[in-house]
């Protein structure tokens, strides 16, 4: 729906859509004439296929949690500034507090499915929401702080450079080795880490879900 924070462009898109109602017959399908470029037809960042971790990379979970916690704490003032500027945040779909995101994700790293802390929602669907909350915390902060409007740059930073991204890649490794069908499905179908637009499926999977 156009570009963020560009009301005139957004209204141009809406007006173009509404003008289609004036057609004398239908159905009608039209392309909006202005194209917002994306890389190689992708609508989101794609992890490089060679960037895959294994369960042997996990090491000391407490160290991982400490690193992610420090990283998140360092971002907190800018996250607060982003909320103040936008008047809203999309973080929080999971219903967990920000401090709970990383510990909940890490609780899967031993290969067991933990008990869900949210009543009425099983642990694995909750995990997916927490993963997205965690990423949103980082990306909302940086889009505001550094005015980044480049999905490739943002994805590369979060997934390849941050400790939180590494935590999620370790979770992916655990999922891949899991005997739990749903855990395996969420990596097979690229429902957790962005592999859908990658050049080939995640190694060790057939991408059969797609």
């Amino acid at each position, binding site marked *: 729906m156009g570009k*963020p924070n560009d009301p005139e462009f*957004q*209204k141009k898109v809406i*007006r173009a859509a509404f003008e289609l109602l004036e057609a004398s017959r239908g159905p009608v399908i039209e392309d909006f004439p202005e194209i917002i470029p994306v890389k190689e*037809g992708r609508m*989101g960042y794609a992890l490089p296929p060679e960037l895959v971790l294994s369960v042997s990379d996990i090491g000391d979970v407490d160290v991982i949690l400490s690193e992610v916690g420090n990283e998140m704490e360092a971002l907190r003032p800018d996250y607060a500034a982003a909320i103040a500027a936008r008047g*809203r945040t999309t973080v929080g779909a999971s219903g967990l507090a920000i401090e709970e995101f990383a510990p909940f994700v890490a609780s899967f790293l031993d290969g067991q499915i933990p008990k869900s802390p949210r009543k009425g929602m099983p642990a694995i669907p909750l995990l997916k929401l927490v993963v997205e909350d965690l990423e949103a915390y980082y990306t909302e902060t940086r889009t505001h702080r550094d005015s980044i*409007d480049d999905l490739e740059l943002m994805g590369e930073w979060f997934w390849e450079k941050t400790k939180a991204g590494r935590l999620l890649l370790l979770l992916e490794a655990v999922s891949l080795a899991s005997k739990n069908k749903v855990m395996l499905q969420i990596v097979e179908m690229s429902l*957790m880490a962005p592999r859908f637009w990658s050049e080939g499926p995640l190694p060790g999977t057939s991408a059969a879900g797609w």
Partner: protein
Amino acid sequence: MPAVGRRFMSNLELTVPTNYSWTKPVPANERRVSIVSTAAVSRRGDKPFSWLAKDSRTIHKTDRDLVMTHVAVEFDRSAWQQDLNTIIPLDRLEEMAADGEIASVADEHYSFMGAADPVTMEKSARAVAAQMKEEGVNTVFLIPI
């Protein structure tokens, strides 16, 4: 397009409507507009959408504290994070109503899980349509994601 995405998309079936009616719209300045989004957006605290949800969520025109629980992670969400009007353009429609381009913005707007098969949503879609009729909506703005 990379192989995984290409294979998935090339296997999708294109639905071709065969039994439709083409209704003459009301004049633009008489439109009362309601949005239907497939972005699985809902009010904070609402029940999150399940992965293949058939149901819908209702968003009031004044709601701005919205979250997204769409199952797919492959689409860029940074625009939505920066400006909800990229998904649910409530502010833009309000401005267009204030300028007289449309008559009014409906009180209620609706969201579905776009990853689910629309055929399974018929019951919910009919319920939404009934609510729209009750509210006097004469124009529906479908915004896929």
